[in-house]
C-alpha cells in the first residue's frame, strides 16, 4: 500500500480546464489540466477554497498538464499564499511546462513562490519542513 489516497475527484469538467485532487499524507495535491484564464479561474478558486475548508494548508500545485495560465490564474495563487503560510503550510508549484514557467519567471514569481521541477521534490521539501518543526 502506498501513501497515496483515492485518485481523482475533479472539479470543473465543463470547460477546457480542470482541477484534480490527490492526497499524499498531509499534503493535498492539485493537478491542473488545460487552460487557466479569467473564465476558468473560478475552478481553481473553488479548489483552494475547498483546501481551506478542509484545513489543508500544505498544497502542491502540479502543473504538468497546465497548458496556459493568464494573470487571473496567477492572481489566485497570490491571494492564497499568505494565508497558507500563516497557517504553517505553503503552496508549492511543481512540474510546470517551459512555456508556463516562463510566464511565472517573467513576473518574478520564483521570488515569492517555491517552484520546483518535480512533484516529488515538493513533497520532499514539505517532509523536510515538517521534520524540522518536529525537531525544534
Amino acid at each position, binding site marked *: 500500500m502506498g501513501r497515496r489516497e483515492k485518485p481523482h475527484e475533479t472539479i470543473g469538467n465543463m470547460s*477546457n480546464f480542470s482541477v484534480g485532487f490527490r492526497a499524499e499524507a498531509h499534503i493535498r495535491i492539485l493537478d491542473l489540466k488545460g*487552460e487557466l*484564464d*479569467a*473564465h476558468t479561474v473560478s475552478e481553481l478558486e473553488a479548489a483552494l477554497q475547498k483546501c481551506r475548508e478542509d484545513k489543508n494548508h500544505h498544497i502542491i500545485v502540479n502543473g504538468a498538464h497546465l497548458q*496556459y495560465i*493568464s*494573470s*487571473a490564474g*496567477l*492572481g*489566485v*495563487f*497570490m*491571494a*492564497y*499564499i*499568505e*494565508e497558507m503560510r500563516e497557517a504553517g503550510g505553503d503552496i508549492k508549484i511543481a512540474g510546470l511546462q517551459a*512555456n508556463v514557467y516562463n*510566464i511565472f519567471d*517573467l*513576473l*518574478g*514569481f520564483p*521570488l*515569492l513562490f517555491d517552484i520546483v521541477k518535480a512533484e516529488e521534490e515538493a513533497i520532499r521539501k514539505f517532509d523536510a519542513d515538517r521534520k524540522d518543526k518536529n525537531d525544534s
Partner: protein
Amino acid sequence: MPESAHSLSIPSATQHLTKVRRFVEKHAHEARLGEEAIAHIKMAVDEACANIIEHAYDNARQKISVFVMVDSERFTVCIRDQGRSFHPESWSEPNLFKIAESRRGGGLGVQIMRSLMDQVEYTTQGNMNEVRLTKFRSGRPGRNGGKTA
C-alpha cells in the same frame, strides 16, 4: 498597408477568451511567427480583453472588436471597446509581495502586456477606446521598449 488584416468581434464575457486566443494564434502561425512570439501575443491579447471585460465594461455584456494586422515588419493586434477608458499614466508597476500581503490577486494584466509585447499603445477617440499591441518581426530588442503610450 498591411499584407493581411483580420477581424473578430466577441461579446464581452470571459467565456469567449479562448476564441480570441485561438484567433490570434491562427493568424500568428499564418504569419510564420516563432512559437515564443505567438505565446506572448496570445497572452497579451487575452489580458487586454480580460481587462476590458472586468474594468471597461464592469462585466456588462457589450462588444469587443479584435483586429489583426500583419505586414513585413510587425504583427499588430488592435482591441477596441466602448467602455470606461484606461489611463496608462495612472498605472504603476505592481509589487508582487504587496499583492500577496493584501490577499487579493489581480493587477498584473498590464504588466504582462508590457513585458510580452514590443509596444503597447492606448488611445481614446470619442467613446471608442483602443489598445494596440505590437510585436516586431525582427525580434528587435524591446522587451517592451514596452512603451505604454
